[in-house]
Structures are given as C-alpha cells and as structure tokens.
C-alpha cells in the first residue's frame, strides 16, 4: 500500500501530508495536523461530532477519505477564531450555556456556520433541520438552537443597519 502525498487546504492554510490511502479526513485533521477540535464520535456518520465545512457545505469528516479532500476548501472549528477573537457563534454558545461536556460543540457550530453562511436569517425550523445530523447527549437542543438564533438575529440587525 503506497503512501499518498497530499496537499490539503485547511482553514485557509496549505498543508502537505503523506498518508495511507484508507486514512479519513478526520484522521489527518487530528493526527497529522493536530487540529483536535474536530471529534470522532460514532465514526459512521450518525452523530455529527466530526462535522467540518468542505467547499461551503457541512460534511462528516469520518466519511471523507483524506485523499478525496485534496483540492477542497476545508474549515474546522479552529478556523473560526479571527485575530484572537472568537466567532459570534462561539460567543453565543457560551452566553446561552449551549454546552456541557462540549464534545458535540465543534460539529454543532460547524453545522450552524454552514447554515448561516448560506442562509443568514433561518427560521427556527431551518435551524433544527441544519443541526439534525448533530447529536447532543447532555445539553439538550434548546440552548443550542437559541444560541444560533441569536447570531442570526444579530446578523439580520446588522443587515438592516
């Protein structure tokens, strides 16, 4: 089994890695690039803990081969912070106590970001739909939905001004 020499673009930065063909994007993010914000929960696309944004869409990084991700724009939770400032979604999750153990949070926020990037003013139903592939087993979803709603509301205020 040969090693593949891959060029990956993650959070705007180019990385070169040598990986075996069966390695998943999730493995490379965590083990090679040490971006451990992305979590492995189920490993079979049921829980959404490994959600990242690839070419503008939320995907399960446990179901993408690292080699398939070559040439794509990938964003992980680590890519949200700008100049030491957290992303409004991260701030809102803290304000709303939208996490307890935090394991689902990176995936949850990436799903929320994929939604807001495409649809800055989603309805509550659209928010629920967007995070329907992300399981949370301790916080419950209400605080999470409210946190996302707050960011979308402030976005709509921003748009009106």
């Amino acid at each position, binding site marked *: 089994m040969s090693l*593949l020499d891959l060029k990956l673009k993650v959070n705007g930065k180019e990385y070169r890695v040598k990986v075996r063909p069966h390695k998943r994007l999730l493995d490379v993010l965590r083990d090679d690039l040490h971006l451990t914000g992305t979590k492995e929960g189920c490993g*079979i696309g049921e829980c959404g803990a490994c959600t990242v944004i690839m070419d503008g869409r939320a995907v399960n990084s*446990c*179901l993408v*081969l690292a080699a*398939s991700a070559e040439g794509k724009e990938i964003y992980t939770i680590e890519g949200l912070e700008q100049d030491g400032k957290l992303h409004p979604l991260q701030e809102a999750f803290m304000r709303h106590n939208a996490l307890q153990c935090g394991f689902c949070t990176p995936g949850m926020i990436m799903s929320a970001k994929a939604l807001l990037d495409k649809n800055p003013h989603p309805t509550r139903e659209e928010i629920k739909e967007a995070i329907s592939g992300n399981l949370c087993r301790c916080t419950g979803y209400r605080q999470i939905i409210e946190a996302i709603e707050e960011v979308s509301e402030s976005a709509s205020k921003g748009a009106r001004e």
Partner: protein
Amino acid sequence: MHKFDYVKARSLEEALRALSQGGEKACALAGGTDLLVGFRAEDARLRHIELVVDIGDLTELAYIREENGCVALGALTTHAAIAESSLIRVAAPFLATACSQVGSPQIRNRGTVGGNLCNASPAADTLPVLVALEAEVVLRSLGGERRVPVSRFVEGPHRTGLRPGELVTEVRFNRPLPGSRTCFIKLGRRKAMSIARLSIAVLLRTGDGGVVEEIRLVPGAALPVPARVTAAEEILRGQGLTVELAREAGEKLAQEMVRITGQRWSTPYKVPAIAALTRRAILTAGGLEDVATRSQA
C-alpha cells in the same frame, strides 16, 4: 479499517480504465457515505476490494437536466442537489421529498444518487421513487454503454447488476405527464437521521371526472427488490378515487408484501403500517382528505 490502494480519476475515461484494470477487486467511490461505513466495519461484502477508484472530482457527472421530456441526473448528483433542484421539485416532487429525507444534511451533502443505487439498500429512499418513475440506469464501461431499468438493476438487498469494470454514470426518466401528482412518505423510528422502516412512493394521474388514468405504487423496505405492486394499482385504475378505494389498495399492497416475503418477525407491524402509509400517500397525491386517519386519531 479495510485497507486498499487508491486512485483519483481525473476524467471519466481514466475512471473506466482503472475500474476495468481492477476488475472485481475495484470499486468506485463517490460520496463515501455508505462505502466508508462498510470499510470501517470491515464488511464482508467489501473484503475483496483492493482498489478504490475515487470518482468524486468528476464534476461532469454532477448535473440535473431535461432534454426532450427526459430528465437526466448525473450519477454524482448529491441528495442535497436533487432536493434543492427547482426542475425536480416541479417535474417529480416526490423525488425531491425522498432526497430531502435521506440521513442528515451532512449525508445529503455527500451522498449521491448513483451511490444510493449501487449500494442498493432495501431501505434506500430514492429507489421506490426511481422505480415509480420507471427510471433507467446508464452504465458505462470501456466496452460501451448499456441501459437497465432501475427495477432490474437492483437484484436484491445490496445486490445489483453492476458488472466489473462498469460505472453508473446517469439515471434518467421520462418526465411524468402533465397532471401527474406524486407523494412519498417514509416511516422511520424518529424524525431526523432515520433509516426507513417502510416507505411508499405514489405517482397518480387522474383524467376527466377524477378517473384514475395512471397509478404507480412502489413500497420501500417492504420487498426484496423495489417494484410496483400492480395488484394494488389495478384496484384504482379506471375508477374514481375515493377514500374507500385508497384503503382497499393499501390493504391489497400489504397482502402482496406478505405473499412475496412471507411471514417475518416484523410482519404484524408492517402490514397495518404499509396499508395506512399507502392509503395516506394515494389520498395525498389525489388531493383527498384522509377521513380514516381523522376518525382513528
């Protein structure tokens, strides 16, 4: 995790050549939402795979278009793209509905119609709809092209007529005649992220005076291969649609399911459930209120 060699196809030609060289030991990788789950589980069905041919970058296989009344979906069209397509929403709304209910947003963003066909899960959401549309699969190999109806392509649970060296490149169907109404209902154990326990795809066209001119009934997760249940369709064809006839057709469909699959552990649950789903879907497609549901509720 199952181990394999990997090649990324840069063109359809390259993909076909790699698949041809790999023969039975090669498989095509599209969205990966089924294949990677299987590799991780070291699924016996995939144990012989030594070469993965990644076709994910063949953007020429991701399209939805209509030509001369024929709607064609490239094999790499994602469930999300189909669910969002204004053409599909108008031409075959139940296909958009089925695609919008596959897995989760993450799965729909990666999973493709070609992959759903080749995985041939009995619970696949698109299969009953594609059979109801009398869709055809377009298969390409170095040797040329052949077309097979979806109803024949799927040969059993997780079994298809895909030959070594072949690739599904397109799924196509004739646009249903004007006046056709469709409905797809899926029964899962929960609302999101669910695998169909049962589903039903209905295509219905009524003529003058509400007489049923065309009716196609295809249950999902009910039969070994997705197929129209003609015995149930005959109850409706040529008749004026009523709640009573829809109920009868639903019950007939349930009987046919038992006749074909025999009694199984799930039969006592599936019989009343598929009968009710079918009745409801027929009435929804026909624009009639489901009186039976209301009185039962």
